[in-house]
């Protein structure tokens, strides 16, 4: 046998030879050293070629990326690539029933969206009608009573005593109302909107249905409820007498209807309490706003009216300014104080006044309301307030100053020494008033 060709050796290593061929090749290899060594060489070439071809991996993510080796860290000089459109799994554009199936799903999805949008639009429109100020339900109420979530009075407590069929019809409309707040609000809006239409409503299936119930009860039933009941039994009324539909409506129990109605409609007392609470809340809000405005104005006043005396440094962090503590409505300078008093301003010797200002005369017992009261304000070393009030007296206004009193006169000026320190301290200070 001649030597094995290279193709046969590759076929042998690739497992492509049948058993007879394999036996023949093995027989030759057992006797031919050259072919044996060539086989070893072919093995290496084959392994190397497979390795090289296998090294060519698709670089980016995708279905073929699954067999790639684990991703290495990106080179430091190259930013990480953002995912691109082509990184997404490829899409085979094949027109087949799978697409038809998904098309059906898309249709259903579209229909669901359309239904949702229709519901939202309808609900918004109905809610808009309810909130319109000219609406009869709201026009007879003030805004205070409309602000809390008070449902419109659609069903009065008397209605629960009406004939069964009316309640059953009403119950059909009210039944889904109690399920959730959203549904309740929608149903409520629908009821309110339907009310004015009841006057001009044309004869409908609902009215034909309602012919089987007492007319007096029917008058107070909103047409929306009638229509809803008519819709509910529309299919039945086509093939069955109207009375059957009414009887079916009558099957729902009266107690259930009454419970639903009561749960839905709060009592008059509740409404009154709600209105009072709302009014009280509004009043409280008003008071709070007034207080805030007053505080803001007061806080802004001192720097705007400050004449020439700088505020003490330690007064700044206090919650009340020194003027507020001393009840001074206007700070004045020494010259102005002299004018008011018609003479020199009296001071406590050895103490430096914090400020001089005017205060209301009513604060000083026995003082005249016709003359301004000049108040000299001191702070002792412990921060206690000391006030030396001075007022120029008119004519015969005689000071009544008993001995030891902190109210006395110097010339035609009445003085009154007050403050937070004890009377003994104040008396000692009184001796230093010049």
């Amino acid at each position, binding site marked *: 046998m001649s030597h094995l*060709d*290279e*193709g*046969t*050796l*590759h*076929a042998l290593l*690739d497992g*492509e030879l049948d058993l007879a061929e394999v036996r023949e090749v093995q027989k030759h290899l057992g006797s031919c050293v050259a072919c044996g060594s060539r086989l070893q060489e*072919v093995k*290496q*070439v*084959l*392994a*190397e*070629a*497979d390795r*090289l*071809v*296998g*090294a*060519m*991996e*698709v*670089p*980016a993510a*995708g*279905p*073929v990326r*699954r*067999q790639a*080796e684990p*991703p*290495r860290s*990106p*080179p430091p000089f*190259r930013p990480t*690539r953002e995912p691109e459109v*082509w990184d997404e799994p*490829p899409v*085979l*554009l*094949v*027109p*087949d*029933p*799978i697409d038809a199936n998904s098309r059906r799903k898309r249709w259903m999805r579209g229909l669901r969206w359309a239904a949702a949008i229709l519901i939202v639009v309808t609900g918004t429109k109905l809610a808009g009608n309810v909130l319109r100020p000219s609406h009869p339900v709201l026009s007879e109420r003030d805004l205070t009573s409309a602000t809390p979530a008070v449902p419109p009075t659609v069903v009065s407590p008397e209605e629960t005593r009406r004939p069964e069929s009316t309640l059953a019809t009403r119950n059909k409309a009210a039944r889904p109302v109690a399920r959730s707040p959203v549904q309740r609000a929608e149903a409520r809006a629908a009821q309110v909107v339907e009310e004015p239409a009841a006057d001009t409503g044309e004869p409908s299936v609902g009215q034909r249905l309602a012919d089987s119930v007492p007319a007096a009860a029917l008058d107070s039933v909103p047409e929306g409820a009638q229509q809803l009941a008519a819709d509910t039994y529309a299919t039945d009324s086509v093939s069955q007498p109207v009375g059957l539909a009414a009887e079916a409506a009558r099957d729902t129990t009266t107690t259930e209807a009454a419970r639903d109605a009561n749960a839905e409609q709060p009592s008059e007392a509740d409404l009154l309490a709600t209105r009072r609470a709302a009014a009280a809340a509004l009043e409280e809000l008003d008071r709070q706003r007034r207080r805030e405005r007053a505080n803001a104005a007061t806080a802004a006043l001192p720097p705007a009216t400050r004449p020439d005396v700088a505020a003490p440094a330690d007064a700044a962090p206090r919650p009340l300014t020194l003027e507020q503590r001393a009840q001074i409505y206007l700070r004045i300078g020494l010259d102005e104080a002299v004018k008011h008093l018609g003479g020199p301003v009296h001071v406590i010797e050895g103490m430096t006044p914090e400020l001089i200002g005017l205060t209301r005369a009513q604060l000083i017992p026995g003082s005249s309301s016709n003359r301004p009261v000049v108040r000299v304000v001191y702070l002792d070393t412990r921060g206690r307030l000391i006030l030396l009030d001075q007022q120029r007296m008119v004519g015969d206004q005689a000071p009544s100053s008993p001995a030891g009193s902190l109210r006395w006169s110097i010339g035609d000026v009445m003085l009154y020494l007050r403050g937070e320190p004890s009377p003994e301290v104040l008396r000692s200070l009184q001796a230093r008033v010049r």
Partner: protein
Amino acid sequence: MTADLTQLFEQYYGSLVRMLYRRTGDRDRAEDLAQETFARAVAAPPNNPRPWLFAVALNLVREDGRRNLRQGRRLELLRADAPPAPGPEEDFDRNEASAAVRAALATLNERDREALLLKAEGFNYQEIAATLGLSKGAVGTTLARARRRLVEAYRTEGRGKHVAS
């Protein structure tokens, strides 16, 4: 038939893209050609899908290459012959190795290269013969020549130090 086609897609798309990428060196082009291949499979469902899919894909590569040549773009040859130029989105080391192998692969003739790539995708000799229009007996010789030339070209490229001795 549709279910079969879907199954074919799931089964062979990755392999087809990989083979086409090794053949063209362009991932986007490989994916485009793979999708074009499946689109043709929809139009004319094959009886023996795997050889058919890969034969069509290789035909598309050849047509694409000829069209590019006619238009003077020569994108394929540039990509195949150019020294490894790392794309901004590719891992540098892997791209370097892959480009060196692709350069060595480009030195092979068309049939040898395709036989090698099909074998790397798990084709047996019968399937390679069916895909490339060869006799089964010629596949071994073709593969032997392709492997030897690939390794020699790779070693000539100066990468011989990586070859296991």
